[in-house]
C-alpha cells in the first residue's frame, strides 16, 4: 500500500527531481516479506541515529510526505520578508534605539531579573555605568542567587580600577556556592590584576579540575604561570588551550614568550608568526576612522541587545514583540545567523512553517552556508512538500560535509517517496557506507524491495538485524512509517 502511495505521488509530480550522482548496483538477493523485520529495523533505525549522536534526528527532521497531497493542511503564504542589505541608521539613531529597548524592558518587565539584566547591559555598553549598576543592583535584590548581574557588577568595578571590590563580590558568590568557569575566570583575572598571581593560579587549577575543557581558562592559567616563572607548566597549559581550539593572538603571544624563554627559538618564531598573522587579521576595523568603527560597534551592540530582548519577550509569551525585535535585528544585520536561527525556532513553535522556511532559506544562502542550516531547511521544506528545496538543501549539506550519512539517508527517503528507487538505493548505500545505521539499512532494504532485488533487500535486513542486536534495550521506538509492509 505504501509503495502504491509513493508511486502515485511520483506520477503526480510534474517534474522529476534532478539527479546528479550515479546509482551503484547492489547484489541481487532473494526477497522476503518486510513485515516484522522491517518494523524492527525501523524502530531500531531511530536508535541507531540517536546513538550515532546526530544533532538533528532523522525522525525529528524527516516528516514524510502525507498519504495524499490532499490530506496535507494547506500552508499560508509567507508573511515575512528578509532583506539582504543592512538597514541604514546613524549612530545617534542606534543609541536612541538601544535606550528605547532598555526602557521597554523596564516598563514591561520591571520585576523580571533577566529583562533587567538586558536593560543594564544596554547602559553598560553605552558607558552609562551608574545607570547600569543601579539596574544590576535591582536585579540582585530581585534574585539574589542570580550570578550574571554580580559578575557584571564586578566587571564594571574592574573597569573602574576597583579590583578589590570585584574580588570581594566574586568571592562572595563563590562562597555562596556559585560555581562556573566564567565566575572562576573573572575572579582569577581580578586576582591577577591586584598581583595575587598565586591565588589566581590555585583558583584556575581547581576550576580546570572541575571544568576541564575550557580553553580560556587554560590560557589564563598559562599566562598566570608565565608570570610566576613556571615556564614548563605554562607551556603545558597554553598548549592545552591551543588543543581546545583557542586561536587568539593572546595565546600565541604567550606561547611565543614561553618558548623564547625556554630557549626554543624555532617554536617561538613559529608562534610569533601566528601572532603576527592574527594581529594583521583580528583588528578588522583598525584602519577605519573612529566614526566608522564606533557606528559598527554600536550596530553590533544593538543587534545583540535586540536578540537578547527578543528572547526575553519570547520567554514571557509575547511572541509578537519578540518577533518584531528579532526582525529589527535582522534588518540591521541580515547575516546574523544566531538571531536568524532563533527567529526560525520561534516561528516553528508557532507552526508558521512557511515563514520559518523563508528564514531557513535565508540562512542557507549565507556565505559560508552551515551544514545544520541545510538540514533544517530540508526539514521545513519537507513539511511544506517543497521537494525541490529538500533536495537542494540536502545536496548542499552533502557538499559541505561529504562524510556525513544524514543527507544521503534523507535523499534516499525522498527518492523512495517519489518513486525514484534506483537513486534511493544509491543514496541508501552511500549512507550505509558512511555510517551503517538501522535507518540506512531500512531505507536500502525498501529501495531494493521496490526494485525487485529481494536478495539485496534481505541482505540489508540481515545487516539491520545484526546491528539491531546490539541495541536490545530499545524495544519500542516510535514508528518511521516509510517502511510500511506492502
Amino acid at each position, binding site marked *: 500500500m505504501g509503495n502504491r502511495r509513493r508511486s502515485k505521488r511520483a506520477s503526480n509530480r510534474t517534474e522529476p527531481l534532478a539527479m546528479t550522482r550515479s546509482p551503484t548496483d547492489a547484489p541481487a538477493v532473494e526477497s522476503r516479506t518486510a513485515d516484522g523485520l522491517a518494523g524492527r529495523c525501523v524502530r531500531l533505525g531511530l536508535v541507531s541515529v540517536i546513538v550515532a549522536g546526530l544533532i538533528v534526528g532523522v525522525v525529528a527532521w524527516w516528516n514524510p510526505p502525507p498519504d495524499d497531497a490532499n490530506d496535507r493542511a494547506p500552508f499560508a503564504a509567507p508573511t515575512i520578508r528578509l532583506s539582504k542589505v543592512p538597514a541604514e541608521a546613524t549612530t545617534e539613531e542606534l543609541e536612541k534605539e538601544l535606550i528605547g529597548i532598555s526602557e521597554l524592558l523596564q516598563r514591561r518587565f520591571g520585576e523580571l531579573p533577566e529583562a533587567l539584566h538586558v536593560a543594564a547591559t544596554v547602559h553598560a555598553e553605552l558607558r552609562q555605568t551608574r545607570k547600569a549598576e543601579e539596574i544590576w543592583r535591582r536585579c540582585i535584590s530581585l534574585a539574589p542567587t542570580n550570578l550574571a548581574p554580580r559578575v557584571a557588577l564586578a566587571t564594571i568595578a574592574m573597569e573602574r580600577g576597583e579590583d578589590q571590590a570585584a574580588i570581594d563580590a566574586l568571592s562572595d558568590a563563590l562562597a555562596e556556592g556559585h560555581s562556573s568557569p566564567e565566575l572562576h575566570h573573572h575572579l582569577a583575572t581580578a586576582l591577577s590584576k591586584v598581583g595575587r598571581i598565586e591565588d589566581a593560579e590555585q583558583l584556575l587549577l581547581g576550576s580546570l579540575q572541575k571544568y576541564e575543557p575550557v580553553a580560556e581558562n587554560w590560557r589564563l592559567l598559562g599566562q598566570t604561570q608565565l608570570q610566576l616563572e613556571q615556564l614548563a607548566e605554562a607551556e603545558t597549559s597554553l598548549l592545552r588551550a591551543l588543543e581546545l581550539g583557542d586561536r587568539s593572538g593572546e595565546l600565541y603571544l604567550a606561547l611565543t614568550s614561553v618558548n623564547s*624563554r625556554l630557549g626554543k627559538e624555532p617554536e617561538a618564531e613559529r608562534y610569533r608568526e601566528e*601572532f603576527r598573522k592574527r594581529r594583521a587579521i583580528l583588528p578588522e576595523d583598525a584602519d577605519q576612522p573612529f566614526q566608522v568603527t564606533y557606528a559598527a560597534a554600536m550596530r553590533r551592540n544593538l543587534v545583540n541587545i535586540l536578540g537578547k530582548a527578543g528572547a526575553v519577550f519570547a520567554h514571557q509569551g509575547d511572541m509578537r514583540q519578540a518577533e518584531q525585535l528579532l526582525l529589527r535585528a535582522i534588518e540591521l544585520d541580515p547575516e546574523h545567523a544566531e538571531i536568524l536561527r532563533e527567529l526560525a525556532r520561534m516561528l516553528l513553535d508557532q507552526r508558521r512553517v512557511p515563514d520559518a522556511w523563508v528564514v531557513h532559506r535565508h540562512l542557507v544562502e549565507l556565505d559560508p552556508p552551515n551544514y545544520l542550516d541545510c538540514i533544517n531547511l530540508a526539514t521545513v521544506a519537507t513539511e511544506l512538500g517543497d521537494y525541490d528545496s529538500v533536495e537542494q538543501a540536502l545536496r548542499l549539506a552533502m557538499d559541505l560535509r561529504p562524510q556525513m550519512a544524514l543527507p544521503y539517508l534523507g535523499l534516499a527517503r525522498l527518492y523512495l517517496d517519489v518513486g525514484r528507487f534506483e537513486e534511493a538505493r544509491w543514496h541508501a548505500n552511500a549512507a550505509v557506507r558512511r555510517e551503517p545505521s538501522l535507518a540506512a539499512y531500512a531505507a536500502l532494504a525498501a529501495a531494493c524491495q521496490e526494485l525487485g532485488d529481494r536478495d539485496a533487500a534481505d541482505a540489508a535486513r540481515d545487516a539491520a538485524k545484526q546491528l539491531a542486536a546490539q541495541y536490545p534495550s530499545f524495544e519500542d521506538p516510535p514508528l518511521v512509517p516509510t517502511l510500511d509492509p506492502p
Partner: protein
Amino acid sequence: MRIACLFIVVFLLIPVRIWADDGCPIHLVDWSDRSGVTFVHTDGGSGRAYLVEFMVAGLALLDYDNDGLIDIYLLNGAPLRGTVVRQTPRNALYRNNGDGTFTDVTERAGVGDAGYGLGVVAGDYNNNGFQDLYLNNFGPNVLYRNNGDGTFTDITSQAGVDAGDLFGAGAAFLDRNGDGNLDLYVANYVDFCYDKDVSDMLRRYRFYAGPQDYQPVPDILFGNNGDGTFSDISQSSGIAAVAGAGMGMICFDSNNNGHTDIFICNDKGANFLWKNDGTGRFREVGLAVGLAFDVSGSANGSMGVDAGDFDNDGWLDLFMTDFQAEMPVLYRNLGRGVFQDVTRRADAGRSVFPHVNWGTGLVDFDNDGWRDIFIANGHLLPEIEQLDPRTSYRLPNTLLRNRGDGRFEDVSDRCGDGLAVVECSKGAAFDDLDNNGRIDVVVLNANSRPTILRNQSPVDHHWIQIRLRGVTSNRDGVGAWVRVVADDLTQVAEVHSGRSYQSHYGTRLHFGLGHRDRVQQVTVRWAGGGVDTFTDLAVDRRWVLTQGTGQPLPEKERRE
C-alpha cells in the same frame, strides 16, 4: 543660595583626593604658587577638536647655565586655525634662583619659540659644555644652540634638522655609533594637517579623531656630522623601514651590550624597539623582545616611557603609560634584552586603569634605593564625564611606591598635598630642583599652569648625584651606563636624553642609598667604549665624574 548649590554640585563633580599622611615615607608638597612660575599652557584650540590639541606637550629640566641648579623649559601650544588670541603663546624658560623660586628668562635667553610645541629634548650636540634644546613641533622644528652665556641661537636651518612640516612627538639625543657626537632621533605622530581633519562627533560632543584616522609618518634620525650640522640618515640607518604613530620615546641599552637602542611608544600600534647593531644601523625587534604589546597582545595607546632598574637586578626595565581602559605596562628586563609584562605581578598602576596617563618616571623619591613610579593623568576631552563617568578630564596624579619586593603600592592619597592637585596633566619631569638630595617634580598641565612639587620626604636616607663629563665620549655622558655599589646595594642607571612623555630630565643621575653611608664604587661604561671606576665617594653629595680620570670631583653650585 542657587550659586551656593552650584558650587556644591561643581565641587562634587571634581575628583578630589583626600590626603592623609599616615606614615608614608614620601612627601610631595605643591609648590606651584610659591615658585614664581606663571606660565600658562594653551592647546591653541577653539572647540574644533583638531587632533593636535589633545597631544599637549612635554617639558625639559636642564641646567642651561651650568650653575648647578636645574632650570625649567616649558612647551606651549600655538593658535590653531580658527583660534584668535590677544597674545601669542610662547615656550618659556625659567631660571632656578636657588631659593625655591624661578625667574622667567625666556626673552633674554631667546628661546620663546611660538611654534606648536609637542616634544623637547636637551643635549650638548656640539660638546661645548652647554646643553642645547631641540623642539619637536607641529610644524617646523627648532634647534636652539646654547651660546654658553645665558642665550641661545636658533640654528635649525644651518644644522639641517628642521624635519619639514610634520606632526612631531618625542625626540632624543643618542650616540648611535660611539663617535662622541650626539645624533638626534625625531619621532613623528601621524600625517595630520587642517585639510585632512576628521574631527568626530559622539553624542553631540566633539570627539577627537585617533591615530587610526590618519597615516603614520616615519620617524627621522639625524646623524651628527661633528661640524655642527646633521644629515638625515633615516634610510641608511634602517629607521625609515617602518612607521608608527610615535609618541614618547627613550634611548637606552636594552641588552647591556654597550650600544644604545631606541624605544618608541606608538599610539594604538606595536611599539618599536630599534636594536643597534653597534655601527649605528637599526633593526626593529619590538615583537621579538616582548616590547611591542602588553601581556594580552594588545597594541595599547602608548604615551610616555621611562627606563630604570626597578628591581635592582642590573638590567634596565621600562615603564610605559597608556590610554584609558588599558593598564600601564611595566616591562621587566629578563636579561639579554628580553622583556616581560609584569604589571600585574608588580601591581604597578591598576589604579590608573580607567584614566589616560602620560608623563612618567622611574624615580626614587624616598631615597631608599628602589625606584618609585610617578604617573601624570588627564583625559583628552573636557566633556569625557558625559560620555564615560569612570574618568575625568582633570585628575589627580598617581605615585606608586616601590616596596623593594618587586611590588608597588599606590601611596597617592598619603604622600602630601602635591598629589591632591587636580589638573589635566601631560608632560612630567623629575630632578632635584632645590639640591636637597630629593627628587622634585614638574608637571605640564593642559590649558593651565604647571604643577611644581617639592619633595619634603621625612626620611634620613642618604643619596648621591652624579654628573658625567665625557672627554672622548659625548660631553654629558649620554648613553653612559653607571653602576653604584653601596654596601649590599648595587644600582644601575644610564644617562638618557629624552624620556617620559615627550620630555627631558635626569642628565644628572640620582641614587638613593637608604641608610648606607658610603659608596664603595662607581663604575662608568662610556658610550663609545671605555670603563672608569671611581671609589669611595662620600654620600649626600653631588659628584662630577670625568672620563679617564678615575677621580670624582664635587659639583659646585654657582649662585649669582
